[in-house]
């Protein structure tokens, strides 16, 4: 199957025809089925989709965080001209440690609970990316003046992420910090090595809304100041809209639509994208869609054609037979849905409102009742 999709100009990271499967007791589950994506230098790109759509697996395959076996990863992942999958673990760790940083989803679990913030961050500042450091070398540098410089860098970074009272925070354990402070500490840690690519998994979603917004604003500033390329993973299209330049919408282990952020929100094409946008709560409307009916496909025995077909209000027999092509391909756009075949007249293509009308709704002003 040919699946060439739009590619960013001057890409830092490209993922081509990524396939990831898992062997399990019940059989082989093909979770990622031919994903293509790319991130240009200085670009902020989001992968959006429901829980279980495969966005985290995609991210983990890029960072080589999956245990193989049970996972099996195929395809090509190129980072700044280097093919990553063919690197040895050691070589890969070096590239990752020096040039990529990951901010995990949950600020509660991403800081080591038995070390102070200062200890962890200073080690990262001093030894991050130097994965070849030996024991003797470590102790020599650990107890040299270099440690104080590293400490200064950490403090500076904590100030940059607007951490309150950074001196004090250095001596605190993660359990003594609020969620927002932990998130800031994590972001600071991720930026200490001055990475080229920042990968952020559901950043801030574990926090409450106001803090979440502050964190996203902070992130926007940091991206600008540090000239970062960013891959964001989120289930929240609102986050994608707030931060990113371009969005990939993922469903059932495939990219179903991609477009620059503004375009995607103004003119969502894929019925799934439309459904996602329709289920963003609207403050003005008097009714609210509760979400797209049905649930994500079973990966052990996925639908043979379009994986969204079982939930799609517009699905035809054709959809269930074969995987659709990428249609409407532009330099930065594409949609994997037969409705966008040139043969289909534009009038037959659904709008968000139409999709909304197919979804289960509940009155906006009343509560309770299924």
């Amino acid at each position, binding site marked *: 199957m040919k699946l060439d999709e739009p590619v960013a100009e001057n890409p830092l990271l490209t993922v081509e025809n990524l396939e990831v499967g898992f062997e399990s007791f019940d059989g082989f589950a093909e979770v990622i089925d031919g994903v293509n994506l790319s991130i240009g230098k200085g670009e902020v790109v989001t992968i959006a989709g429901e829980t279980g759509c495969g966005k985290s697996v995609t991210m983990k395959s890029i*960072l080589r*965080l999956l245990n193989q076996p049970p996972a099996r990863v195929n395809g090509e992942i190129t980072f700044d001209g280097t093919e990553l999958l063919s690197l040895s673990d050691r070589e890969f*760790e*070096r590239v*990752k*440690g*020096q040039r*990529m*940083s*990951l901010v*995990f*989803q*949950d600020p509660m*679990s*991403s*800081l*080591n*609970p*038995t*070390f102070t913030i200062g200890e*962890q961050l200073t*080690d*990262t500042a001093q*030894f*991050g*990316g*130097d*994965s*070849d*450091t*030996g*024991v003797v070398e*470590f102790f020599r540098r650990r107890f040299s003046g270099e440690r104080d410089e590293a400490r200064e860098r950490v403090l500076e970074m904590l100030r940059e992420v607007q951490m309150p009272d950074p001196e004090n925070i250095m001596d605190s*354990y993660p*359990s*003594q910090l609020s969620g927002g402070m932990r998130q800031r500490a*994590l972001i600071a*840690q*991720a930026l*200490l*090595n001055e990475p080229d690519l920042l990968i952020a998994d559901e950043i801030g979603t574990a926090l409450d809304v106001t803090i979440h917004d502050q964190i996203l604003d902070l992130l926007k500033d940091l991206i600008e100041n540090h000239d970062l390329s960013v891959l964001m993973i989120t289930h929240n299209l609102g986050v994608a809209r707030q931060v990113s330049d371009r969005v990939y919408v993922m469903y059932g282990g495939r990219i179903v639509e991609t477009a620059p952020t503004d375009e995607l929100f103004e003119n969502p094409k894929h019925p799934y994208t439309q459904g996602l946008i329709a289920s963003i709560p609207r403050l003005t409307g008097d009714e609210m869609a509760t979400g797209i009916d049905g649930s994500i496909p079973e990966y052990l025995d996925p639908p043979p054609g379009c994986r969204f077909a079982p939930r799609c209000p517009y699905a035809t027999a054709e959809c269930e037979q074969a995987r659709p092509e990428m249609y409407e391909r532009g330099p930065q756009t594409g949609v994997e849905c037969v409705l966008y075949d040139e043969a289909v007249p534009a009038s037959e293509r659904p709008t968000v409102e139409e999709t909304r009308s197919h979804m289960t709704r509940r009155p906006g002003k009343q509560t309770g009742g299924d």
Partner: protein
Amino acid sequence: MKYWQYLVRRLAGILVSLIGLSIIIFTTSRVLPGNPARMALGALASEEQVQALAAEMGLNKPIPLQYLDYMRGLLVGDLGTSLETKRAVSTDIVYYLPATLELITVSMFLTVVIGIPLGVVAAQNKDGLTDNATRLVAFFSVSVPGFFIAIMFQLLFGYLLEWLPITGRLGSEFGSGVSRFTGFLLVDTLLSGNLAAHVDAWAHIILPALALSLAGIGQVMRITRSSMIDVKDQDYVEAERGFGLPSWLVTYKYTLKNAFIPTLTILGLLYASLLGNAFLIELVYSWPGLASYGVTAVLNNDFNAVVGVTMTIGVAFVSINFLVDVLLGRVDPRIRLAMEEAT
């Protein structure tokens, strides 16, 4: 609640447990079949002599009063007189305890220095050859009776290979060349400046200590392995690896410290089984320690000695568990917080 307040509460709880323990042990020891006074004096003594001694020992009083008398004595370090050795029980305990502590300390040391590294190695080769081998060894070590492995060691290293001595703490030829300073022979031989005796003391302790520590090594190995694997999958470890920190640093600094927490809890529990199994191991190796003394006391209905030994072990045991709690609080700030929040 402050951390130290928590510790004080814990101490109070321990005191209550120990008093409960002393009541149980004291009461059971006083409903002995047979008359301890008669046993102390032997079959030839007259009935009047036995009665007189019974009165002197306070055996005619009701048990609660006897208990209060005993506790009063306990506060000034008087545990009564052993019917068997005719010495003060406290003297006997001070005499025999160091041998047992020495044995347990060496066992604990072996448990830690063998068990933890093997657990780390097993975790790093999860489901590999080393991992499966350690799994088998662990199964073996918790299933085999300690006294049986002790006998097997004697057969193999003593009788068959003739590498090591199989009974006692020190060869008889060194008896006069070592003075008693601490009761710990590994220390006393050095203080006496007798290097040959020091080596001999090691030769004597190695088999019993190894036999005693085997079950613990298996458990420590498995718990270290499984907690290393748990911790290794934590986001923060993945993150630390992701930031390109040297992998040995991530394993031995950032993973092992967290993985050590369950291990530390197990080490506290292990101390109990070491104290218990020492009774069997000392018997096999004729190790002149507290456990040997206790077994003799039990077999001879020497009730003051039984109570004294049992209470000593109870105190040692709860103190170790208290110490483990304190250490846990030090190692893991979350536990300290949880302790502070408790009640």
